[in-house]
């Protein structure tokens, strides 16, 4: 029931609560008054001392970034001084901001919007320095310094940026540095990175960032209210320069490699190509070229968005290191795995033969040999030498896909090699379980045949492939490829010495590998690689023509060209029974569709250049468009 109005309302009003509220008001105000009295009447002196408008700021002193040298000590990067313009928003009074922004945009040739965006971009404290412009020309920098009285909060900082003298030649390996991104800075600020710092973005600049950066120092600097520096009060900690890197890369080999692959690209009009040179005894990479490539000097002072977009859109994707970042079907080069597996599992011996015909059938399907005829009975060496598909279909069939996968993993396929560069792809080694997980059905026998000749689901990076042949050449040790040989500290002491890193010892006898090396030599002597055998040096290896993609109107598939080759330590008189090879070379021609194997010609050219062979054995007519297998 609703009672009388007044009684009901009176019940709401509890006088005690009003009194309590009043007490709270008086209490609050009394405390404030008391504190105010204390500060203004009693202690006026203590606080006014802090009225000194100047302040002392602890600032970071950047360290010199480490230098990178090639194998012989040649300089691949230098630090060049440059001027940057920065603003500390906390020192820029709101009332003067518009005028300062206008003046700066006029001096720097930037739009006022860009300047404002840069000032507001920093998510951190208003007392952090924010970068407005990089690599400002010296006269402009001096002008801004001179006008500093009218530009509160603006500072001209001397920094250094990277210069790469050889530009595109080493860009895939060296990479470049760039500004720290906002999501990185949260974790990195604990390590001493500033919000507008620079950090390695790709290549060894990234993978060795912590060595190259060194340690920043700390200085106490006195500044006036508008942020201008007055004096350096004290140096709390000296900066420690970054360590230098000595690469395994040899500049001479890199140049020759680039020359060879560039010739191949120009003659065969390739979209992209790769050439890698390694020392199989240690895993050192002597040369690594991926074309097309880019000039990393473009990034050194901050690349413009237009230039960056152009690089992203360019066909051939120059920003990707195709040697490690892309994976392709290996084609016939994979027969190394099948052959080794056959020997290792006792399905083959050195002289046992398998009959090869025009094709094999499974139900209604026919699996053809590349010459559509076969060669009759072949042993492992002649089978490998002719690159007979039906030979290796049968060996793969004997092994089964899971056993084939075992031998592939022995050679390092299907996982990244762990090379000290970022962006490595893993490749694919298919198994029954993998196919179940990925497609929900098991492996079909025909697909096992395909896997045995490096087609179907098999996928590898060029680096994995050359590394496998390196293990063959050195007698069965799979090493981790490395591009940095040593890290030397700023005082000259070795911070990290060179050590070959063994990934796996092949689970097969030394004799089996000798047989495979002789098989690789047979590839050359049997003239499957045309006149490669005529060179004055002995080369063993394997070519590959890997189909991919979708069939054209005539039912043909496009294809890549591969060739991997190695020479004995004594290239003229040495023998492939020995395991002393010092040189293994791989070339990859992307979507070559040439009459002959373009990669073989490229490696041939490199060998000529490397060994100083005067006569030119190249057969450029092989690089004309056509179908390798004949029409």
């Amino acid at each position: 029931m609703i009672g009388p109005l007044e009684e009901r309302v009176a019940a709401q009003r509890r006088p005690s609560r009003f009194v309590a509220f009043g007490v709270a008001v008086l209490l609050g105000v009394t405390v404030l008054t008391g504190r105010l009295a204390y500060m203004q009447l009693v202690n006026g002196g203590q606080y006014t001392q802090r009225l000194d408008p100047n302040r002392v700021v602890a600032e970071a002193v950047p360290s010199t970034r480490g230098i990178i040298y090639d194998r012989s000590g040649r300089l691949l990067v230098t630090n060049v001084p440059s001027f940057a313009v920065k603003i500390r928003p906390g020192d820029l009074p709101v009332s003067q901001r518009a005028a300062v922004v206008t003046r700066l945009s006029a001096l720097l040739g930037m739009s006022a919007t860009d300047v404002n965006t840069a000032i507001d971009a920093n998510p951190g404290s208003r007392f952090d320095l924010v970068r407005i412009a990089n690599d400002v020309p010296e006269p402009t920098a001096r002008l801004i310094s001179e006008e500093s009285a009218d530009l509160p909060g603006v500072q001209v900082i001397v920094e250094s940026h990277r210069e790469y003298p050889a530009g595109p030649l080493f860009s895939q390996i060296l990479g470049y540095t760039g500004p720290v991104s906002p999501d990185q800075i949260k974790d990195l600020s604990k390590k001493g990175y500033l919000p507008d710092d620079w950090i390695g973005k790709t290549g060894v600049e990234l993978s060795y960032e912590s060595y190259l950066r060194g340690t920043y120092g700390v200085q106490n600097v006195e500044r006036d209210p508008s942020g201008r520096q007055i004096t350096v009060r004290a140096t709390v900690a000296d900066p420690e320069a970054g360590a230098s890197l000595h690469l395994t890369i040899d500049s001479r080999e890199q140049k020759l490699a680039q020359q060879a692959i560039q010739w191949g690209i120009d003659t065969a009009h390739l979209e992209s190509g790769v050439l890698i040179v390694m020392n199989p005894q240690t895993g050192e990479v002597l040369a690594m070229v991926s074309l097309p490539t880019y000039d990393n000097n473009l990034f050194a002072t901050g690349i413009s968005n237009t230039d960056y977009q152009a690089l992203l859109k360019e066909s051939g994707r120059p920003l990707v290191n195709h040697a490690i970042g892309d994976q392709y079907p290996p084609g016939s080069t994979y027969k190394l795995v099948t052959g080794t597996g056959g020997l290792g599992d006792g399905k083959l011996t050195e002289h046992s033969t398998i009959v090869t015909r025009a094709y094999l059938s499974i139900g209604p399907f026919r699996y053809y040999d590349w010459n559509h005829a076969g060669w009759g009975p072949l042993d492992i060496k002649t089978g490998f030498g002719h690159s007979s598909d039906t030979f290796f279909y049968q060996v793969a069939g004997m092994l089964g896909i899971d056993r084939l996968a075992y031998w592939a993993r022995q050679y390092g396929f299907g996982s990244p090699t762990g090379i000290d560069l970022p962006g490595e792809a893993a490749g694919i080694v298919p198994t029954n379980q993998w196919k179940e997980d990925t497609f929900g059905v098991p492996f079909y026998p025909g697909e096992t045949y395909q896997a045995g000749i490096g087609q179907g689901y098999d996928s590898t990076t060029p680096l994995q492939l050359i590394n496998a042949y390196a293990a063959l050449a050195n007698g069965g040790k799979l090493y981790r490829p490395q591009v940095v040989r040593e890290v030397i500290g700023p005082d000259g002491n070795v911070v990290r010495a060179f050590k070959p890193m063994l990934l796996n010892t092949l689970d097969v006898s030394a004799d089996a590998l000798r047989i495979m090396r002789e098989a690789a030599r047979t590839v050359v002597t049997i003239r499957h690689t045309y006149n490669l055998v005529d060179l004055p040096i002995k080369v063993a290896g394997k070519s590959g023509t890997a189909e991919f993609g979708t069939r054209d109107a005539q039912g043909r598939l496009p294809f890549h060209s591969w060739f991997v080759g190695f020479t004995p330590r004594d290239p003229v008189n040495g023998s492939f029974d020995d395991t002393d090879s010092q040189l293994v070379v791989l070339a990859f021609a992307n979507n070559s569709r040439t009459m002959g194997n373009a990669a073989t010609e490229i490696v041939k050219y490199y060998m000529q250049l490397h060994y100083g062979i005067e006569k030119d054995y190249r057969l450029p007519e092989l690089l004309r468009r056509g179908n390798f297998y004949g029409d």
Partner: protein
Amino acid sequence: MGVLRIERSSLRHWATRPMGAAWRAFDWQLTIYALLLASIGLAMAYSNSDDTVLQGGSTFLRGLMWAGIAIVVFTAAAVFDYKWLKTLAWPIYFTNLGLLAVTLAIGKGVGGASRWVSVGGIQFQFSELAKILMIVVLANYLSRRERKLDSLTSILGACLLVAPAAVLVLMQPDLGTSLVFGAILAGMLFMSGASLKWLGIMAGAVVAAVPIVWTHVLRDYQKQRLLSFLDPTADPQGSGYQLLQSQAAVSSGGLLGKGLANGSQAQADLLPVQSTDFVFAILAQELGFVGGLVVFALFVALLWRVMTSAWRSRDSFGLMMGAGIASMILFQLVVNVGMVLGIMPITGIPLPFVTHGGASLVSLALGLGLLQSINIHQSRAEW
């Protein structure tokens, strides 16, 4: 009592009401105190600008404009019959949440925050308006439940009403304003007559939740702000900088201050947010202890008049409105001035009427206007 007659308030009814009674119920003192405080704020803006003070776009002129708008809003709210608010409570609530959501979506602010929305070059901070709207909604809720205020459910219901708005504000991120929501809730619950036992338990729960909030909810710079008030000398160039400069300014004021426009800190533009939250520091420097006392006295008087309206209100809606507005003003006063004087952590809470900020002034005008509406429209018994 006789026959109960429920009269709907209508325009015709209002127009025929004797004017004399209305004007007598209009609380002149409340208006005068508020106007005085606002004038002090304008005087600070005027005296601390540079030569451009009378040019378009200057802080002072914009302050004048907002003051004009605030007076209009105040008058309109006083004339408006507050009882409509009871029917409009839910639409107001959802409009409130909507405005806060919009602020999150398209708002801009310092350092990536979303505090204010720009409409045609004018910035408006919706969270200021949200406080008043929340008070209206809460007042309606609590007055409806006046018989059930002993139960925990009423208290929880009030908390649930306030929570979405407080969270939306906290996401901006604006820790200070969300604390004001908390103060409003606490003050209104206390004054509503809710069971002290339950209120005490909830207060204990809040205290217990502080460590959890510290670790999981607060961002690093917010923690740093809170910590630096405890020892501003620990980071004298960063977060402690404002504190040290403001304390220096205050203490240099002495008894009578240095005179208007003579603040040294102001001229050196050293207090980075000098035209907004730290205005009391300038005031203390320029007008001295006496000036500070005057401001405090005006606030005490204002709060007294607000509580008087609450006491006199014939329905509990008016009581709650008064309690809410008083709690808000008291909390902001103590925290803002405490921050300037170094006994409270730095938060982005404005000093009512004095801090330059259009949204704050207009929202206060709305709130006080509604109080006047309550005074006026209760000047005769409605039933």
